[in-house]
């Protein structure tokens, strides 16, 4: 299976099919038990990870910090990289950067958006999103799809796992169905037409 730049791949499958595991393997956080993964033409995992944005089920942020503090913190962990401004990326995901509340007081949907903002911050070349639409209302999910559409048009690759296939349909170039850890089918998506 090859993933081309500027394309969006949607991974579907029942619970336990291996969607999240595949994303973690692609992110270089997990070694595959079988087979191999080559990212960016064979970069070392440590170098490749810096060019990948990975969003998991969990927000991957600190509850005790505000959204802006969290983003500012993570932006500083990318030395020599021109990251987006925390306020700007928060606005892009539909959050108010002036909000003084710590993340622990956010709703699940707001945390999800902040998590997406963290992922977009260093402008990654490969975006891996694990269930990005969970806990989101339809309007917020639609806004997220619009944002991801812009990201895809800048020749960056997106891999999304989701149970809500219809929400991701407008940007899906390929829909990959997984079953018991193996690729069952690869179908062209709506955006590939």
């Amino acid at each position, binding site marked *: 299976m090859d993933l081309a730049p500027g394309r969006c791949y949607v991974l579907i499958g029942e619970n336990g099919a291996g969607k999240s595991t595949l994303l973690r393997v692609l*992110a270089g*956080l*997990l*070694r595959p038990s079988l087979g191999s993964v080559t990212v960016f033409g064979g970069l070392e995992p*440590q*170098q490749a*990870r*810096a060019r*990948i*944005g*990975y969003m*998991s089920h*969990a*927000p*991957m*942020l*600190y*509850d*005790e*910090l505000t959204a802006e*503090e969290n983003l500012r*913190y*993570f932006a*500083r*962990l*990318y*030395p020599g*990289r021109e990251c987006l401004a925390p306020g700007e990326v928060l606005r892009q995901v539909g959050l108010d950067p002036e909000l003084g509340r*710590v993340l622990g007081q956010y709703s699940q949907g707001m945390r999800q958006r902040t998590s997406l903002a*963290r992922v977009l911050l260093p402008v990654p070349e490969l975006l891996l999103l694990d269930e990005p639409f969970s806990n989101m209302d339809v309007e917020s999910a639609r806004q997220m799809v619009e944002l991801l559409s812009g990201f895809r048009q800048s020749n960056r690759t997106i891999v999304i796992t989701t149970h809500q296939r219809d929400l991701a349909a407008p940007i899906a170039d390929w829909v990959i169905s997984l079953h018991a850890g193996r690729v069952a089918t690869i179908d062209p998506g709506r955006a590939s037409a």
Partner: protein
Amino acid sequence: MTRALWTHLVKDLRIEWRSREAINSMLFFALLVVVLFSLAFDPRGAFARDIAGGVLCVATMFASVSALNQAWAREIRHQVLDAQRMAPSPGAELFLAKVLANFLFVTIVQVLLAPVFLVMYNLNVVGQPWKLALVLPLGTWALVANGTFFAALSIRTRNRELLLPLILFPIFMPALLAMVVATGYIFTGESDPSLWIKMLAGYDIIFTTVCLLLFDVVLHAE
């Protein structure tokens, strides 16, 4: 100090300032140990000076375990550690920032504990008290450098609260011995603690270096 190290440190201090989880739990536990020992042994005069060093070190050691576990539990909660692993910033800086933060928290507890300790044990220091300013930071550094490393090692295990002291305490034993003997000599004025202070400094240099070199392996372990 590099930018990433400073960033990690400021983040840890800010989180602790807002939650006060580590300092509060450590302080309560250390106070409890000091009070219980004073009730159990009825320390007075020379006897108080003999046991005071040991009580102080053991209280610090037990109390710091909760803070050391919490330091990494925060990173595991919501999978923040995975976000750290994705970033290109070196793991050694994350480790060193955690050690510095934990060192600061334990030192604050020791400073708050000191007057209570002096009153409860009715201490009259016979030796050179300024040497405590060498012994306590060196011993505390030995504890938190190893503790932070082994807490990271055991953080993904189910029984991490139990596992940390089981791994940490035997490795910390030489430093504990040096800390207790040196503190005892300072309290009683019986002998010169310089040799033990040098041993503590050597222990700190060796173990901090080893932990720094190995931390990336621990951070990226699956």
